[in-house]
């Protein structure tokens, strides 16, 4: 009996959208351990009691990707896409750094910088949303414009410079520790949980999925798709802003050409790893969470194996192509044909014929 219970638990676990993500993370970590047996070692910094180690680094790196992946999940669930998240991160970084370099080193300034960055990225997200929901543009075109123009906006904000600022409270968001765990990771987890509660404990998530499955049917069922679409894009913009604050906070410099560069692929990848379909209609925030962790692990592993960091997009592109292939009907058909026993198939066909 215990064995049977064990197998059902296993089966449920395998069905979870993020199961294969976790398997991949473990595989990557194992690869690192083979190269360096002490890779997983965590130690405590005697001076301040903080955890130190590669795993902690991975958690810290994963935080910004988690943010944009959550936003991207919602947008993709509506059947759209937001290609502008990476550029919005750069905009958020540029805004907050410019503000801080003028406002100086105080807690209030840090708060205002974060607020200002989120307002501006929220507005830019709203621009995407209006173009998609009210004007009726294809999502990827509407957001492609901002993906490429966004970096220009960031450059204009900083005047083409990589602005540096110093503010301890702002820096604490990205570099600080709370009870030994990086603040940035705790913050990311809290935001994921908050978004998850809002979306899953209310009908909001269901309505977003309904739009993605069939916009016309959802409208006939009494859902107003336009407002919801706008909300999804604004959310994505704000979350990209948070990600931008997190990623510039660790070095307190915004590099307008590198901050958030190509992170839209990371976000899409995290969402797809998490089991969501790029065609829209379903999303899994826990899946996106695991997906973001996997990407951070992949980034670190590739770097650790001595490959240039600018080459990682190639690996990610291959992963995303493979996942897209696995999602496609044709490949699924191949597996189904192989798995299904012959007689049952014949029976099914007979039934179809008789019906």
């Amino acid at each position: 009996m215990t064995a049977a219970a064990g197998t059902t638990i296993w089966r449920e676990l395998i069905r979870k959208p993020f199961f294969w993500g976790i398997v991949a993370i473990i595989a990557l970590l194992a690869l690192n351990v083979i190269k360096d047996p002490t890779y997983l070692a965590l130690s405590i910094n005697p001076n301040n009691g903080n955890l130190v180690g590669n795993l902690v680094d991975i958690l810290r790196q994963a935080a910004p990707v988690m943010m944009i992946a959550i936003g991207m999940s919602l947008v993709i669930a509506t059947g759209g896409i937001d290609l502008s998240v990476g550029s919005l991160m750069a905009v958020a970084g540029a805004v907050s750094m410019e503000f801080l370099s003028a406002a100086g080193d105080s807690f209030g300034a840090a708060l205002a910088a974060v607020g200002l960055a989120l307002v501006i990225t929220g507005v830019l997200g709203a621009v995407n949303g209006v173009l998609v929901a009210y004007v009726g543009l294809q999502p990827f075109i509407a957001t492609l414009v901002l993906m490429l123009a966004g970096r220009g906006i960031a450059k204009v904000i900083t005047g083409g410079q990589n602005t540096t600022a110093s503010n301890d409270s702002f820096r604490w968001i990205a570099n600080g520790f709370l009870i030994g765990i990086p603040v940035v990771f705790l913050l990311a987890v809290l935001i994921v949980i908050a978004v998850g509660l809002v979306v899953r404990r209310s009908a909001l998530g269901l309505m977003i999925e309904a739009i993605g499955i069939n916009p016309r049917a959802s409208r006939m069922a009494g859902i107003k798709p336009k407002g919801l679409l706008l909300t999804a894009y604004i959310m994505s913009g704000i979350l990209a802003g948070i990600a931008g604050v997190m990623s510039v906070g660790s070095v307190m410099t915004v590099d307008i050409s590198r901050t958030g560069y190509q992170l839209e692929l990371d976000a899409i990848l995290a969402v797809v790893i998490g089991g969501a379909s790029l065609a829209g209609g379903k999303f899994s925030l826990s899946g996106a969470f695991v997906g973001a962790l996997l990407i951070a692990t992949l980034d670190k592993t590739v770097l650790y194996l001595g490959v240039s960091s600018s080459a990682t997009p190639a690996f990610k592109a291959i992963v995303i192509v493979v996942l897209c292939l696995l999602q496609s009907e044709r490949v699924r058909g191949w597996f189904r044909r192989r798995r299904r026993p012959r007689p049952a198939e014949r029976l099914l066909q007979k039934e179809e014929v008789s019906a």
Partner: protein
Amino acid sequence: MSAVSVSPEARPVGTIPDRARRMITANPSVLPTIASIVIFVGMVIFGEVAYGRILQFNTLSNLLINNAHLIVLAVALTFVILTGGIDLSVGSIIAVSSVAGVMLSNAGWNVFAVIIAMIGIGVLFGIVSGVLIRYFNVQPFIATLAMMFLGRGLASLLSTTPERLGEDSPIRWIGAQLKIIDGPKVNDLVITPAVLVAVLVVIAAFFVLHRTRMGRTVYAIGGSESSALLMGLPVHRTKVLVYVISGALAGLAAVLYTARLGTAQNITGIGWELDAIAAAVIGGTLLTGGYGYVLGSVVGALVLGLMNVLITRDGGIPPEMTTIITGGILLVFVLLQRAVTRRRE
């Protein structure tokens, strides 16, 4: 563009405004193309009045020389967008193809082998995106976005530093400037083989799109894929083929650009997707597919090129604004298209 394709049957009747009105009512999608020509002429006049030295041989020939690769890319995107698809990978294909080409050339390969290899890389990328889109139902922008990152990553794997083409490499000849009219001072009409190649590409694309079965199928797919399928047109083959054409032309653009610049880098061509899409859209190609003219896209590419010239001439506009302005223009034209198509509905 529109005038060329429509004028033969419209010529016998009426005056010019009458003809124009007839053309627009018969086919509202020519509006953006006409708008792009008007904008181009307007920009030339504005530039001539405000800054001077626009309407002369060396400025105009430089415009062509500096934008030969963009014209080729715009043609590539026109094919894909006409079918209702999109190709975001062209910029990265240029990066990987030019870096690989320069490295092969410096390794002592024959010129023709290098050029064929550079175009071949583009063809390979095109085949992969085409197969993903056609056989595995991946959305075009996802498939080509993956190719965009794959190309960028492969280019970085090859080299992360600028690769310099040998000074005596015959590839440089493609970018060599040939004087046609020797004007006073520096005001010469100059042309490069690259410009000729671009012109040939445009002529070939025009012929393929308007005078062959394949071109007809491209337009039919963009109009309605299921109707094209029901009509028995080779939809599947053509859909893969447009991405292969787009990839090959991107490879060719890499040859032209590398020949002119003499160096290749893994960050070459970032954001050129937007330029090429913008050129096609400004030229009147509908993003939903089915309407558009390859000559319009050429005008679109020249509008973008001229915009860059005017921005540098002005001096008051920071160069960072270029992408914002390009994006803004693209947005305006997409909205214009949206308005036109909505009225048709």
